[in-house]
């Protein structure tokens, strides 16, 4: 009998007795069943099994404490209304927000946090972890930790840009379809059906092989970006100016200007191949956003207050902006989180296949592929970027779950 085992059982039994005494039914059941399970585990696995249980429980407790602390921190620093909402957040959502916060800090301050450069070769290939390299080196001898930190910046920024563009296009089209109805609605609906009928990964591979290679230059991506912005712009102009010709002319002129600025701005952030990746992702995911937005807005446009606004002679743009959008934000925000995860996984998957972000840019998907050979030597290194992807996806989903719960109107 080691001291560890004695302490282990003392804590468990003491805890369950206290829980029983204070009538905490669920806590008691949890602790006491853990005690019973531990008997069996101890007999089969010995002390290491019990240590594993203890460490897992400790990690879980740490995560819970961090999420609790972070939630209370947010409650303390935000405004009264925000704090009221945040207080209803479950611990999982607190955990999710904490992880997202950590990733955001890592991504934004990547050059400050990372000890080495993104493409800096500092050791021999696959060098093991030591004091200067927290996670060892990759297949070219670059610092794994630094690349993970830079990867947060690259992968997340791409996924965020792709999701945002998909949302602009999809949500605008959905809102317009719901308010206009008729042939316009049918046309957009069938367009989205066409895009959705092609499996997304295959569609992405197809588009990327067309626009990859020689076409991935500044001119092509500029025109593609401007074209995308023009489609969004035409939808917006249609909503704002409706049937006035002067409105259309002014709107189209403004739109052309905005599209040019937007394309130039995007090209300063991303290189041409990344721009094409973002656009492909936006086109693939916008139909899903379109469908959801149209459904949510469809429920709102039948309300009497929309009828009242229409009878007042309001324009479509006012209806969309002031009457419909405030009533559909909750499901849209939740959908944004969900789509972000899908986009993120798609980009990581494409990078893993060698079609996404091009080396030497650090990216979690390609990092998994580059270090994949190590797995046959029993090393966990390739799993670290994979874990980073998994953790972010789970975290975002935790937050989204909370938002979905809130928007579904269920009371606790």
């Amino acid at each position, binding site marked *: 009998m080691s001291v560890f085992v004695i302490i282990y059982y003392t804590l468990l039994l003491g805890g369950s007795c206290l829980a029983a005494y204070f009538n905490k039914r669920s806590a008691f059941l949890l602790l006491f069943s853990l005690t019973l399970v531990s008997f069996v585990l101890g007999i089969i696995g010995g002390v290491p099994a019990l240590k594993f249980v203890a460490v897992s429980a400790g990690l879980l407790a740490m995560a819970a404490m961090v999420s609790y602390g972070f939630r209370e921190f947010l409650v303390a620093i935000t405004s009264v209304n925000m704090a009221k909402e945040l*207080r209803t957040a479950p611990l999982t959502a607190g955990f999710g927000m904490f992880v997202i916060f950590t990733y955001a800090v890592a991504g934004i301050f990547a050059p400050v946090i990372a000890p080495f450069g993104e493409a800096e070769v500092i050791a021999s290939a696959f060098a093991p972890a030591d004091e200067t390299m927290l996670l060892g080196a990759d297949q070219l001898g670059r610092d794994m930790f630094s690349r993970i930190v830079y990867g947060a910046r690259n992968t997340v920024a791409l996924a965020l840009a792709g999701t945002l563009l998909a949302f602009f296009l999809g949500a605008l089209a959905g809102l317009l379809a719901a308010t206009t109805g008729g042939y316009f609605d049918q046309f957009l609906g069938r367009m989205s059906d066409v895009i959705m009928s092609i499996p997304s990964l295959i569609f992405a591979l197809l588009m990327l092989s067309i626009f990859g290679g020689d076409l991935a230059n500044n001119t092509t991506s500029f025109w593609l970006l401007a074209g995308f912005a023009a489609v969004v712009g035409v939808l917006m102009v249609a909503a704002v100016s409706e049937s006035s010709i002067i409105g259309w002319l002014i709107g189209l002129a403004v739109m052309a200007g905005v599209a040019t600025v937007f394309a130039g701005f995007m090209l300063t952030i991303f290189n041409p191949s990344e721009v094409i990746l973002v656009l492909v992702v936006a086109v693939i995911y916008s139909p899903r956003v379109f469908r959801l937005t149209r459904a949510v807005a469809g429920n709102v446009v039948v309300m009497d*207050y929309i009828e*009242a606004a*229409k*009878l*007042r*002679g309001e324009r479509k743009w006012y209806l969309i902006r002031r009457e419909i959008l*405030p*009533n559909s934000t909750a499901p849209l925000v939740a959908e944004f989180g969900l789509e972000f995860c899908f986009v993120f996984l798609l980009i990581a998957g494409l990078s893993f296949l060698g079609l996404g972000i091009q080396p030497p840019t650090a990216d979690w998907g390609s990092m998994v592929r580059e270090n994949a050979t190590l797995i046959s030597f029993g090393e966990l290194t390739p799993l670290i970027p994979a874990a980073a992807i998994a953790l972010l996806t789970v975290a975002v989903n935790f937050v989204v779950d909370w938002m979905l719960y809130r928007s579904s109107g*269920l009371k606790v």
Partner: protein
Amino acid sequence: MTKKKDVLLKIRDLKIEGYSDETWVPIIKGVDLTLHRGEVMGLIGESGAGKSTIGAACMGYARDGTRIVDSTIEFDGMELTTASESDKRALRGSRIAYVAQSAAASFNPSHKLIDQHTEAPLQYRLKKRMEAQEDAMELYEKLRLPNPQEIGFRYPHQVSGGQLQRAMTAMAMSCRPDLIIFDEPTTALDVTTQIEVLSAIRDIVDEFNTAAIYITHDLAVVAQMADTIKVLLKGEEVEEAPTREMLENPQEDYTKSLWAVRGFKSPQRKRPTDGTPPLISVRNVDASYTGGEKVLDDVSFDIYPGMTVAVVGESGSGKSTTARVITGLLPPSKGEVLFKGEPFPPDYRNRTKDQLRQCQMIYQMADTALNPKVRISEIIGRPAAFYSGLKGAALKNRVDELLDLIELEPAQYYNRYPPELSGGQKQRIGIARALAAEPTFIVCDEVTSALDQLVAEGILRLLDRLQNELNLAYMFITHDLATVRSIADEVVVMQHGKVVEQGPKDEMFTPPHHPYTDLLLSSVPEMDPDWLTTLLEERGVDNVGDAASARIDPNDPKITGASA
């Protein structure tokens, strides 16, 4: 029949709290209730008085976000507050049943009525399926549903609202419970349909000696149904007394004020005689929804400036469709609408801003008529800004002025959102929104039917005052003749999309009537506890509701006379 007089339900010091803004707020503040076997108790009070919450508590049930604290609820010797969930579940459906306000929303649309009816007896193994079905048909017959052998095999959407409500009562009866809780079972029904449901409920409760709690805000209805009446106000009991005593001699001031509600009557205005053209003139309008049959058939009537025209009729008679034609939401297939003698473009999209401004609308459901995510200041301010181009301080002054006009304190409501307001306040905001456009004509679509009598009366008084101050014309759509009596100057009676009778109010309320008007008038419950009994004796039990309107003789001289 002798009624056993032992106590069935005993509630002492009932306290229920609701969770809001992170604290527990008391909703019910210590109500006592004693119900004997076979007794019918009426719970009345305005919305928010806690009627439905008490009704649910009688089953030991607290809705989500509420909890029952230190009270005793004893049902037939069994304490419900400490009983386990499975014990309480065993009571519900078999010994305590519940009839909800909206039968259409409470039936599962994808199962036949009889399958839903027999679910409880089968679940509790009281009867075999065939027995239960036979019993269901027997109950349907007792509740005077047409075709009792066959009606149970229909789906809920295949029967009318009144029939559905009776089928729901039959379903509650399926296990012969000791107690039934009726939560506003007739509020959503027309007066003519209401009678058949009321008489059916009353007979069956009497026959099986079932105790019942009847929740409603309609005093005249509760007077017909209940043995004793309990008046509630803001979660507290005001008084309780046997029905007759309560009606004749109410003790508390609040009860007296409830009784006096129906007293409001606006003086009747006459049409101008100096030849001013009518403000709105509906001429021979036919209308139908896409591909459907004709909903309006040759409808014509005039509305003069500053006058109120009430349009009455049961649901489906084309009242609201007429309003949609006038506002331009549904262009008519034949005929036209004139505004001050000028033709009004049939589609609202072709109307000018000024034409749109002239004609405003107030909706029945203030909940859906106000955007829940927009502040009051913007809801009211938008029309003012939109039509008159007001901005900044001028706009704020205008909104304050409008809030003053509808008797709400501007500083207090300026920045609030609609969900934070009560039903009556929301309806006032709806009125303010219509006024903000400075219209000459307002369509009021059942504006008071979702409100309690006290609140409704406040709204009617407000509308009447505004009419006098601003010289507004109202088209007042309603199925409640008490409302017509209090506010209308002229009345248009509609049935099946046709105008059956129209004229000044005083003429309409003096006989001889068109038989349909007569049916409507005689179906309005009165504050006399014997009213229903007398009415049924006069008409015969089988001659109420649909049956009665079907029985109108098409060759009646009054009908041929009315169209001439």
